[in-house]
């Protein structure tokens, strides 16, 4: 008779009420800001009435987390070096930020030398990126791609922020205070476990980029701190897809203040020609047009086996790859779309290769360079 009655029922988590109230207060804060802007345009005289200070009261867990992060940041000020080994769901040659659901947990090593300026090296099976304090370099071990840029470039897939412990913790601290991230903290034995849960960021009117990176996923970041030293011991990131959270990142070791050979840290291929991404691009053909028109020019050039008129679009693309596409026939181009946090646009295409096989995909084009030149950023 009692088969259908649950033997146990769950209680709501303790943080539920706090989270709801805090979100409501944050919404109020946003609404006040919006209303403030709106009213300014209508009648500035009423603006003063709305300038009442808003006091955001963080919940106890967020306050405790903030304290922990503060202490951790102070500890990390004493760091000289840090070596983080982690596994991430991706493929050996992919960009460092890319999550690939069809990939495997690939081992990465991130070595940081805290200095003035900091220097670091991020390495996995097929790809390496280095920041030597002045320039950033990134290359595939096959040397089919070797690019460089001045300053800290986006070659590190955001891990330079994520794994530079001081920035990472400050970033989480800001999240705890400002955005809708939820913080949970618990103590177990000699450890403190901090979980930060965030919603995917970006425009997902088109879902193409959903779950392609951590920021573009509903994710939770789980940090394990040593209770005594307040230093991070482990880190795990899970993203939500197919009905549940999946671990796509986990550290296998974090070592502090171990000797790091600076020559090995900064080692990179010698006597090779690096493509400098800071070099200004000029192309009349690829500016002042839509991404779809640019895609059309690019595929037409490949079809004609002559990319010279639009060579700037091919940027760092490997020559062998480019030539392997020679003679293709463009069957169809779809309307461009944006997705997630990607700064550029995607143009759906269908092509027929010279050997008769057909392929479909979305070519990624971006024009966020000074001269607004459309360049290929992936998808071929």
């Amino acid at each position, binding site marked *: 008779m009692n088969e*259908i009655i649950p033997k146990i029922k769950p209680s709501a988590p303790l943080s539920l009420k706090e989270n709801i109230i805090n979100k409501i207060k944050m919404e109020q804060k946003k*609404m006040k800001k919006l209303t403030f802007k709106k009213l300014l345009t209508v009648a500035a005289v009423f603006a003063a009435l709305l300038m009442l200070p808003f006091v955001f009261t963080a919940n106890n867990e967020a306050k405790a987390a903030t304290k922990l992060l503060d202490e951790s940041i102070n500890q990390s000020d004493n760091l000289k070096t840090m070596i983080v080994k982690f596994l991430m769901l991706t493929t050996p040659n992919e960009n460092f930020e890319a999550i690939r659901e069809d990939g495997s947990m690939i081992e990465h090593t991130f070595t940081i030398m805290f200095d003035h300026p900091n220097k670091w090296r991020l390495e996995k099976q097929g790809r390496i990126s280095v920041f030597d304090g002045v320039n950033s370099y990134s290359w595939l071990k096959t040397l089919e791609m070797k690019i460089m840029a001045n300053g800290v470039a986006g070659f590190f897939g955001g891990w330079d922020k994520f794994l530079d412990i001081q920035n990472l913790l400050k970033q989480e601290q800001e999240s705890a205070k400002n955005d809708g991230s939820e913080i949970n903290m618990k103590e177990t034995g000699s450890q403190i476990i901090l979980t930060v849960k965030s919603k995917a960021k970006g425009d997902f009117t088109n879902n193409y980029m959903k779950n392609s990176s951590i920021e573009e996923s509903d994710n939770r970041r789980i940090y394990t701190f040593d209770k005594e030293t307040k230093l991070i011991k482990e880190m795990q990131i899970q993203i939500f897809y197919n*009905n549940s959270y999946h671990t796509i990142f986990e550290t296998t070791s974090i070592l502090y203040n171990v000797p790091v050979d600076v020559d090995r840290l900064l080692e990179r291929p010698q006597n090779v020609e690096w493509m400098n991404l800071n070099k200004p691009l000029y192309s009349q053909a690829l500016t002042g047009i839509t991404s779809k028109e640019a895609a059309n020019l690019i595929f037409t050039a490949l079809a004609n086996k002559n990319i010279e008129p639009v060579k700037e679009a091919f940027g760092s693309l490997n020559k062998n790859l480019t030539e392997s596409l020679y003679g293709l026939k463009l069957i169809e181009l779809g309307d461009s779309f944006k997705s997630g946090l990607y700064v550029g646009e995607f143009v759906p295409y269908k092509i027929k290769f010279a050997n008769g096989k057909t392929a479909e995909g979305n070519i990624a084009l971006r024009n966020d360079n000074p001269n607004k030149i459309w360049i290929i950023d992936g998808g071929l």
Partner: protein
Amino acid sequence: MLGLTKNKINELESIIEEYQDQLFSFAFFRVGSYDIAQDIVQDVFLKFFQNKRTLVSVKNIKTYLLKSIANACIDYKRKYGKIKMDNIESVGNDIADDEKNDEEKMCIAEFMRIEDLLSELPDEQAEVIKLKFVDELNFVESAGILNISVNTVKSRYRYGISKLKETHKIKGTYYE
């Protein structure tokens, strides 16, 4: 929602305190995950509070909130697909075990057991039975949540119970 006073916040806190366990349990036994149930309950409360008029115009807050949770769970399943028994063992498994406390593990086991028990029933019969035994609601309350007549609720209940007995999944007498 603009301009919620301290009193109003206190009122909201009381409503959350009064209903959060029941709503959380309701959502959990539909989606089988603490995290998702928590998200659903939070979203429903936020939407409820976003329209401060609902606070005064809703006659029966409990039914209103349960109905909202039920709809949110349906939307969730529509979006992410119905939970299939094949996948059910993976519910929650991706979370490190030490992340889950004993209560959570036991609840997940109970969720799986009840899903298995009701798996051969049509959805509408399974839902009526869950409302009665899992959520401990009477037929009138269930009818309000499902937007159907009390008689329809009763007939779905009878068919469901009879099918469970036929398949020997339950024994004994189940009263209306």
